[in-house]
């Protein structure tokens, strides 16, 4: 039933702490225009627009998609807003791709963004509620105890997180779109940074960024036309999956959530993946706090439970160290975090890689890649597989 579909255009803004030269509308339009140019298209060629961002409370602009319709060329066309917390950029791309895979549309523009300089995300994530203690201190305060539980369960050495923090920042030096460029990054620099949410140092956490990401998802016919017009290959979508689970239930495993495992199993079945570590050439995975790399290595089945830190320690996920399964070659969320766009950037980077267009952070001969995003209290997951070859 499902039609073939592919990423035929990609655009992203340079992530920065403050984009004072543009409004939110200007920011999203910048990424959208880049994606259209990449695909050899104009706004008139687009059938529908799908927009995603994280909670509206961040910037205090409610339902921003309504005011962004004009800037995104959506007037007179179907427009959708997706919201699944931090995973939203991934979910948004999947909703857009579903509109093409279902045969409804030929070319769908999908855009995700966050303008953190207009917002106070720490405040928005820490609003006191009458039925709980006013303790929550942003996302770090929520995830740090879960990270401690992982460290205890797996017996990982204390420096694994710091190693991820260094590795992703070294990758970011190869990506001109990344927010953080820290040429002097080292384990010592991470260790010497302030302990914000023990066991997480400042440099083990993501930055606050302004940024937008955009993709054009096209049908097989649209992909052939784009390649003919631009000479650039598409990234074929081989599988897409989303899962959720309740935030609180007795026996919930937040270190290795069931929804993430189920999502990966569904995705791998669609894409014919039996051994993720061997079958993928690279992966872009949502790691906003360093320790989520070893945790998601396990959740995504790249190794047995409890062994994730061993891959990280061995350099398996580092392109600098020539690892066999480089993760987050773009620098990842640890180097750029425009929250709503961060999930889409993971998906977008996998498409860049299999199209061979990732520039300095290109993995040689990347043919197949995994994109993953998670959100909320680890209760939303979105994943896809893209490849250079048609499914």
């Amino acid at each position, binding site marked *: 039933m499902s039609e073939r579909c592919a990423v035929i255009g990609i655009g992203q803004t340079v992530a920065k702490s403050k984009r004072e030269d543009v409004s939110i509308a200007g920011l999203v339009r910048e990424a959208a225009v880049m994606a259209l140019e990449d695909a050899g298209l104009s706004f008139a060629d687009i059938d529908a627009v799908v927009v995603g961002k994280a909670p509206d409370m961040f910037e205090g602009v409610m339902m921003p998609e309504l005011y962004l319709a004009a800037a995104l060329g959506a007037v007179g066309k179907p427009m959708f807003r997706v919201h699944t917390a931090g995973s939203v950029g991934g979910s948004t791309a999947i909703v857009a791709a579903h509109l093409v895979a279902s045969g409804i549309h030929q070319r769908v523009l999908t855009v995700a963004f966050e303008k953190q300089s207009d917002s106070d995300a720490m405040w928005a994530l*820490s609003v006191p509620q009458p039925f709980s*203690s*006013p*303790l929550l*201190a942003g996302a770090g305060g929520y995830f740090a105890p879960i990270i*401690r539980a992982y460290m205890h369960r797996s017996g990982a050495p204390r420096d694994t997180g710091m190693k991820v923090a260094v590795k992703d920042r070294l990758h970011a030096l190869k990506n001109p779109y990344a927010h953080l460029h820290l040429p002097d990054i080292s384990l010592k620099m991470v260790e010497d940074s302030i302990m914000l949410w023990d066991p997480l140092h400042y440099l083990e956490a993501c930055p606050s960024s302004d940024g937008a990401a955009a993709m054009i998802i096209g049908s097989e016919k649209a992909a052939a036309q784009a390649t003919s017009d631009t000479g650039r290959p598409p990234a074929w979508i081989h599988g897409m999956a989303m899962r959720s689970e309740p935030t609180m239930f007795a026996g919930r495993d937040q270190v290795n959530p069931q929804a993430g495992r189920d999502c990966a199993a569904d995705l791998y079945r669609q894409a014919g993946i039996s051994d993720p570590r061997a079958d993928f050439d690279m992966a872009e995975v949502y790691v906003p706090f360093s320790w989520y790399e070893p945790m998601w290595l396990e959740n995504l089945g790249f190794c047995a439970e409890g062994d994730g830190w061993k891959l990280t320690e061995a350099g398996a996920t580092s392109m600098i160290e020539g690892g066999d399964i480089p993760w987050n070659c773009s620098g990842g969320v640890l180097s750029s975090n425009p929250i709503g766009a961060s999930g889409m950037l993971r998906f977008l980077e996998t498409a860049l890689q299999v199209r061979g267009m990732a520039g300095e952070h290109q993995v040689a001969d990347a043919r197949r890649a995994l994109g993953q995003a998670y959100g909320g209290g680890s209760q939303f997951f979105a994943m896809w597989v893209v490849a250079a070859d048609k499914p």
Partner: protein
Amino acid sequence: MTEPVTMMAATTRLDYVFTAGVAQSKNLHGLEEGKFIGQRCPKCKKVYTLSRGSCPVDGLPTDEIVELPNTGTVTTYCVVNVPFAGQSIEIPYICAQILLDGANLSFMGLIQEIPIDQIRMGLRVEAVWVEPDELGPTMASVKYFRPSGEPDAEFDSYKEYL
């Protein structure tokens, strides 16, 4: 006149009316009396603290009320050392997941009366309540938790509730 306006601060104030509903009212009235109230699922028998009135796993009403003790175990924690707008507690402070004895779901609580470098998983704690005339239908009725002096709990006893 030619310089663009790059930023204007617009402060928004939001006052909410919160309708607690039947299930949370039971918990909140418990707090008003200086007690923790749990609600048990008729199928899986798990006891939820701060229950929303149904079991998230079985989807059944958690009608059976269970009064829970004042004591519990720190399953995991972090030390918060980051300032932010609206923060009401002096940093650094210990934010812990606390599993009350007899409950099957932990919740976040503040730990005090222990040096920060001595906090640990498995620490046994007890709730310290506000003065009786200050009790109200809110978690603010619990001032904080402090070490109870009992030996630490074994990891196996709380490993499902991290």
